[in-house]
């Protein structure tokens, strides 16, 4: 996912739907996020481009809702319920994911392996 400033971002994304789990008073998703436009992108271990300030999944609780839905560590979250996550602050991303009146979040995530899978499938089946 190369990011050229001024140009629209294109990426191959996977749609993941996570049902929030109720634990006491909170609704949890079972993963941790890092990144944001107010954070230091050089510290991100998962991004290819060290100037990428997007939101990344840094940790998944094993057996949690995110794990079961198919989210993987290192995924970059592009959208949450239709809201853009590529140019948000860390706190805004957290707020979008933890809205109390939503029981389900629909994420669009991207990872390196998706691109390669698409390339392989396109290469395997030549255009007709």
């Amino acid at each position, binding site marked *: 996912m190369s990011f050229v400033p001024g140009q629209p971002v294109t990426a191959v994304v996977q749609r993941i739907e996570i049902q929030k789990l109720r634990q006491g008073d909170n609704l949890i998703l079972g993963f*941790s996020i*890092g990144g944001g436009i107010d954070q*230091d992108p050089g*510290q*991100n271990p998962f991004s290819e481009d060290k100037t990428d300030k997007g939101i990344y999944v840094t940790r998944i609780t094993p057996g949690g809702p995110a794990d079961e839905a198919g989210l993987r560590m290192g995924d970059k979250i592009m959208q949450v319920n239709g809201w853009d996550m590529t140019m948000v602050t860390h706190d805004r991303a*957290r707020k979008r994911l*933890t809205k109390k009146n939503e029981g389900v979040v629909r994420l669009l995530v991207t990872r390196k392996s998706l691109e390669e899978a698409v390339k392989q499938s396109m290469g395997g089946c030549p255009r007709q």
Partner: protein
Amino acid sequence: MDTESTYSGYSYYSGRSRGSHRHGERSRDRHKSRSKDSRSEKSVTINTPPAEPLLGDSAVRGEQIQDDNWGETTTAVTGTSEHSLSQEDIVRITKDLEDSVGLDCRRYFTLTLAVILGLLVFLTPLAFLVLPHLLWPERLQSCGTACEGLFISVAFKLLILLLAVWALFFRPPRAGLPRVFVFRALLAVLVLLFVVSYWLFYGVRILDSQDENYQGIVQYAVSLVDALLFIHYLAIVLLELRQLQPCFSVCVTRSTDGEMRHYNLGQLSIQRAALAILEHYYCDFPVHNPALLSASKSRAAKHLAGLKVYNVDGPGNNAAAGLAHSQSRAMIAAAARRRDTSHNELYYEEAEHERRVRKRKARLVVAVEEAFTHIKRMQEEEQKKAPGDVMDPREAAQAIFPSMARALQKYLRTTKQQHCHSMESIQQHLAFCITNNMTPKAFLESYLTPGPTLQYSRDHWLARQWTLISEASVTSGLKDGTIFLLKCVDFSLVVTSKKIPYIQMSEEYIDPKSHKFVLRLQSETSV
């Protein structure tokens, strides 16, 4: 009362002839007062405008009716000039005379009581020692070594007691308080009872039975002096030490312009607290300047002057009280509906005034600095110069004063301070500054800001007669929420007290080695 709000003890001096006008105003001139237009430079300042008519003075009322516009054009109504007497002054002086006679009687009475008590206290031990020698000298046992040692002890203890009493009680009285000082009265009664009981015992057991044991008598006298020293210790604790620990925070507000100060006081009676507050007042509060209050009064007069109420119904319809009530209600309603632009005027007037003050201040500063450059201190080796050139500070001040006099006068008039400073006092201050090598800025400071009342001349201390107005008894102690008033002729000080809360402090220990830090790599939030 109307008189209290519009009277002041001071007047404006006309700017042109400061010295000569002082002696001119002997009687109250009934001039038509002109409005003080402070915008134009050539305006006429008010000399001695007439005050409101005295009660029952028909001659004045007659003159007042002729002048229809009197209420409309006045912007500042002041009292009389300094050298004429107004009704208020006469009332004040007679009250002073009455009170001072009464107060002096009381003061002399307490003074004589104190002197009698003191003599009684000091002569009692000496009497105890001397009387046996006078009454039954032949039967008395001779005084041995220990006994004579006790003589020395009595002598020195009496000397210490004398010095201590002189230090604590023989100080010039600071003030005359309305009620008796409770602790002093209690102590006097205690000492009296004490001495009387000792005399009783002495009279019954020693004089009547004519005891021969002289050493016992001397020891008795020593015990009396010891006990007196302890009573003196009690006096120190009750009178001086008890109120040192701050217990109440009092807030003092001046009623005319809202100046507020806060002080910490200990456990005092209301009258002693009032005295302490007054002593702080003279040092901390800026001097009361009635000229600064005239603007708001004129605005208030304008608000009321614009509305006139007519009673359309027949004269006998409503009761007097109901009529007044409905009239005032009608006035309030009409005033609320009226489109009032006085706030606009106030804003522009204040901006204009500030600009003018700053301009005059700039001119003044430049003039003073230039004046100060004309003189310099004469060095030792220049003493050979002609003695005609050499001046003492007073002459030097008189030499450079004319160059700054006009600028200073204009500035004082703009800031309405001209009655606080006379030419004489300004020249004295200038001589003082020159003598002590002060800079022009140091000389000007006392004119640029209004200082505390102590800074000004004696006649500004006119209000030395204060009245304490309080709902609680003035000898009762200060409590949380006590409110009392200190009234003087021109204004009053409103005092409220609050108790200083009990502070509960706890400790927390931090190990110096526990200050450790890590770098924040990236914040990670779990959702």
